[in-house]
């Protein structure tokens, strides 16, 4: 391929991708490599319970109420909240007083980010079908300059390729034509929430969602009052465990692991680590250490009491803070952090329940 062709190709890069790269915000829509679509077992129960409300609310109101509750059940099942006893998951009451506009469904605090799931309406099918090409979503905190990207809530393990596939998946999974409702996920850095609380002088922050169509047209949903929810975290102290990698002939101290149902921070330390995590680090010298850092995240196994194993996968960010390299990893569906039995890396037992 010639240089001119490559340039032509790069010039065709969608504005969406250019826009999302303006600031590093790893809370945009992320598609994971594997996909298992969970059937919602609880949908039947939801409708059974809801049927009694049909008379009270009327058919139209029922359709709207129903989509909120259905989405709550779908989210809970998809994120595997109940089976993993996730106490940091908050589900909001759906009242018949506030069924349209911006409706809070649920939220969970993973320590780094507050995941907020919402429904917005009305959104026409034509508008919904313009995502991701010509429609985007964002959230903001009214009265502040704090904002970020939001995206349609798709099943956690869905793997998509291409805009057409994304568009179809959104219409199928995140949009309800009857009630003209779109379900979105908004990931808010907990530091942003703290900043907003300090700026506004209140814990109840005015949260709003925006739908941006084309280059100029936009619509705001909300604000609604939102307050940060409790995080659920366990810290595993590895007592200065040293892993010796024979291939690289290097030793790394695995200090500990901060674990939440949706994220982990592997804390590791080695000589010279602070210098390697600066923009001017020598890439050649850091090379083998980088591989070793990756190994800790990828090859360590968290073993649960039922014998199942879990790997946190590679780190998304690796800042050096408070004397350790903090390797942050995240995933879609919850794990049960109360059922951790052992944590190992190869033959090295890092932690074991008493």
């Amino acid at each position, binding site marked *: *391929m*010639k*240089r001119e*062709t*490559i*340039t*032509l*190709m*790069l*010039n*065709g*890069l*969608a*504005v969406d*991708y*250019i*826009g*999302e*790269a*303006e*600031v*590093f*915000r*790893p*809370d*945009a*829509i*992320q*598609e*994971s490599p594997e996909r298992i679509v969970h059937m919602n077992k609880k949908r039947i129960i939801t409708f059974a319970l809801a049927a009694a409300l049909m008379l009270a609310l009327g058919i139209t109101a029922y359709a709207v109420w129903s989509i909120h509750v259905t989405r709550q059940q779908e989210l809970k099942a998809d994120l595997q909240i109940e089976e993993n006893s996730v106490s940091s998951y908050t589900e909001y009451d759906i009242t018949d007083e506030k069924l349209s506009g911006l409706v809070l469904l649920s939220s969970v605090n993973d320590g780094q980010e507050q995941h907020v799931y919402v429904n917005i309406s009305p959104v026409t099918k034509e508008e919904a079908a313009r995502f991701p090409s010509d429609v985007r979503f*964002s959230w*903001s905190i009214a009265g502040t*300059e704090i*904002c970020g990207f939001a995206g349609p809530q798709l099943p956690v393990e869905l793997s*998509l*390729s*291409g*805009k057409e*596939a*994304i568009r179809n998946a959104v219409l199928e999974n995140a949009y309800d034509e009857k009630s003209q409702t779109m379900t979105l996920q908004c990931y808010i850095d907990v530091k942003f929430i703290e900043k907003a609380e300090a700026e506004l002088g209140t814990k109840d922050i005015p949260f709003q969602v*925006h739908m*941006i169509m084309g*280059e*100029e047209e*936009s619509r*705001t949903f909300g604000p609604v009052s939102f307050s940060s929810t409790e995080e659920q975290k366990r810290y595993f102290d590895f007592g200065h465990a040293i892993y010796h990698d024979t291939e690289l002939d290097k030793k790394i101290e695995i200090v500990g692991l901060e674990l939440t149902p949706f994220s982990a921070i592997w804390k590791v330390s080695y000589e010279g680590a602070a210098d*390697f*995590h600066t*923009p*001017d*680090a020598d*890439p*050649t010298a*850091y*090379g083998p250490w*980088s591989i070793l850092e990756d190994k800790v995240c990828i090859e360590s196994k968290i073993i649960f009491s039922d014998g199942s194993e879990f790997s946190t996968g590679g780190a*998304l*960010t*690796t*800042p050096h803070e408070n004397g350790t390299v903090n390797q942050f990893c995240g995933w879609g569906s919850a794990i049960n952090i109360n059922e951790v039995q052992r944590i190992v890396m190869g033959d090295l037992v890092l932690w074991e329940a008493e």
Partner: protein
Amino acid sequence: MRTFVCKIARNLATKKYHSNTAAIRNSQYDLALEELEEVLADKNSVEEAYEAEELAEAINGFMATLNYTDRFIFTRRYWYSDPVKDIAKMAHSTTNSVTVRLFRIREKLRHYLEKEGLLV
């Protein structure tokens, strides 16, 4: 909200600027292009005749296969023409880590374009 809309407007302006100045070329832009050229070089000398739309579809289809961090790194390097060390700083990562990721992304892109029939 205003901030967000302004950002979009600025992005569009930047894109325009990028298109206008592409022919002038600056050193970072050249360096970034060379990296891509190295991987996307044709194995034969067949004359290329691609439609802009076809290429845009290919690059955006490829981007949709990447996770957010890889999309960010790719866009910052090959669209904004940022130096690797600046990207590392922005992504709270290291120069080496970004270099390795860029290498893998370029390889992925080559495979993707081959699969799409745009690279022989």
